[in-house]
């Protein structure tokens, strides 16, 4: 985590409540207002992701615009089927993003594998198998409005996961999965325990 | 104040020059040269030659140093990691250099005077000298620059014919 988060914990121990909550509100506001997107378009959902930035839908209204460089971005938007072959590349790009960072899984394939869930050996069954996903957007593909709504949801989430440790809480998000016991798709690199909020299974 | 700045610049120039001598890393070498050139420009300002200092920054730090870096990147491209330079020290050469230092100092010492800001540093005077007494060298240096340009192009582009 970034240095500020440790400052926050220290201040909390000292009892700097008022200062902390004001700074906290400001930091949350700034982080939520400028969620720059890293467009990780791997398949057809990328078209909708691209359309979301352009004339008709205008992502820039929300302060979000795509940057091609993971070092400059805050939220990775996974759009499209993630194959086993693509998985290490996606993970690597995620690791290259600076903290604090978030992940939006856009489209059914990214959420759960989608239509490739059964009878395919090559598709990752959901991005949350190897990344801490924060927001899931269903649809095949979802409309750009749905993506924008997802980013607005993420903004709420950013406020939840704020500086002050007292304000932090886990989202209750444990979607039931039909096959949890039967199918084992063990990930060699499970998401680290420190990144809360994403581990749905 | 002037003495303080002088010694500050002298220390910077010394660090840069030592980097040129000691550094294993090509980029540190070039950075050392940059430090030397910038502190030389600082000395020129201190002595009242403002235009000369700006010319040094313009031509050297902005031009020649970038050329040096380009040459490094062209020559050392494709090597893994940081290219490292061999550093050999020879006590005999060191003694020789100290001897040259002592000799030059002994020769130039009688004419050395206190540091002072020159009165002749104005641009107007420079212009009238360059286009007056020194017109021929000035024009010849223009010719030299053109010749150098052609020479570099023919040397560098020679293998593409």
């Amino acid at each position: 985590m970034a240095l500020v988060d440790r400052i926050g914990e220290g201040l909390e121990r000292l009892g700097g409540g008022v200062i902390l909550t004001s700074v906290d509100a400001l930091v949350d506001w700034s982080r939520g207002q400028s969620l720059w997107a890293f467009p990780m378009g791997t398949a057809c959902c990328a078209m909708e992701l691209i359309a979301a930035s352009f004339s008709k839908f205008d992502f820039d209204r929300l302060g979000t615009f795509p940057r091609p460089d993971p070092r400059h971005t805050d939220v990775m938007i996974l759009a499209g089927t993630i194959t086993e072959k693509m998985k290490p590349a996606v993970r690597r790009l995620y690791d290259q993003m600076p903290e604090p960072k978030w992940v939006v899984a856009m489209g059914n394939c990214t959420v759960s594998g989608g239509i490739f869930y059964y009878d395919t050996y090559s598709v990752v069954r959901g991005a949350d198998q190897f990344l801490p996903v924060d927001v899931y957007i269903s649809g095949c593909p979802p409309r750009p409005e749905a993506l924008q709504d997802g980013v607005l949801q993420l903004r709420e989430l950013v406020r939840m996961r704020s500086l002050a440790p007292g304000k932090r809480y886990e989202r209750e998000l444990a979607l039931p999965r039909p096959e949890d016991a039967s199918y084992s798709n063990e990930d060699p690199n499970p998401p680290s325990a420190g990144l809360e909020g994403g581990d749905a299974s | 104040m002037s003495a303080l700045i002088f010694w500050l610049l002298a220390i910077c120039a010394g660090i840069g020059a030592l980097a040129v001598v000691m550094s294993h890393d090509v980029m540190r070498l070039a950075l050392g040269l940059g430090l030397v050139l910038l502190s030389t420009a600082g000395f020129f300002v201190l002595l009242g030659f403002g235009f000369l200092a700006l010319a040094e920054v313009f031509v050297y730090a902005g031009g020649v140093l970038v050329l040096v870096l380009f040459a490094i990147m062209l020559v050392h491209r494709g090597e893994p990691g940081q290219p490292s330079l061999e550093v050999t020290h020879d006590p005999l050469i060191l003694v020789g250099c100290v001897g040259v230092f002592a000799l030059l100092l002994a020769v130039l010492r009688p004419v050395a005077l206190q540091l002072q800001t020159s009165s002749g540093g104005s641009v107007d005077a420079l212009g009238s000298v360059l286009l007056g007494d020194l017109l021929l060298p000035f024009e010849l240096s223009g010719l030299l620059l053109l010749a150098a340009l052609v020479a570099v192009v023919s040397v560098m582009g020679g293998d593409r014919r």
Partner: protein
Amino acid sequence: MSALLTGAAWGLAAASLIAVAALIGVWWERKVAGRIQMRFGPQEAGPAGLLQTLSDTLKLMLKEDITPTAADVPVFRAMPFLVFVPVASALVVIPYASGWAPFNIATGAVFFLAVPGLSVLGILLAGWASQNTYASIGGVRAAAQMISYELPRTLSVLSLCLLAGSLSTGTIRAEWRWWWVPLTAVGFLVYFISSIAEVNRGPFDLAEAESELVAGYFTDYSGIRWAIFMMAEYGGVVAASLFGAATFLGGGLGLSGVPGALLFVALTALIATAMIWAKWTFPRMRADQLMTFAWKVLTPMALVQLLAVGIALAARVVLS
């Protein structure tokens, strides 16, 4: 010596000016870009999205500051400042009023052209120190571009120095007459185009061409250090616009007092907006087109401009 200290104080003021100008400029750029692309641009943060840049800046300041393991650490960390400081120092020789610049030296025009050139070094070394192929290529491209476009830029400013009979920026503004505008129109065009290329902005932004180089020389910079690079870019835009408005357009077209000052600010904003307009309208050039344009179009244009100014001055002497 006191002149040097005053210069340093003005440099500090220049840095704050750039910070404020970048805050407004980025918002303005996103709004203008939005309108050009039939969008709205930032709307949500503050009235008309005015606070958008503030939130971006705060966020970037609080982001993780990554230094790659393979990087040359001290050089990597220092380079954003080596890029920013020369650009900021250009602001202290700009004639804000007739005959007056904060650091009013006899060679102000040369200072304005020479010292920002030092940022080439910072860009080149930032690319190299990242130990990243994309960053290195971006750095080399940016450096080649910047030293090539320095030539037409210098030549175009030279015609002004010839007209004013001085290298001092304050004197250039004090000597300005209305007939300079038609006479140096070509020079102004050359100055405008090469200024865009100097700060590596579109359509000359192939140093950070994202479709091929990820982000060019600052690929591996994150958080506040990247923000300093962007500030340097906006500082370059501000400095170029201020200088263009103050010298080529005589700062408020020769009007004195409050209307002149207002017109000066308006002209500066106009030039900056034209730069944004160019960025969002023209497609990016190719590297060879870029070099051809600098050496075969802009440089001859600037030379012809210089010749025209010389002939006009000679004609004036003969006629009077």
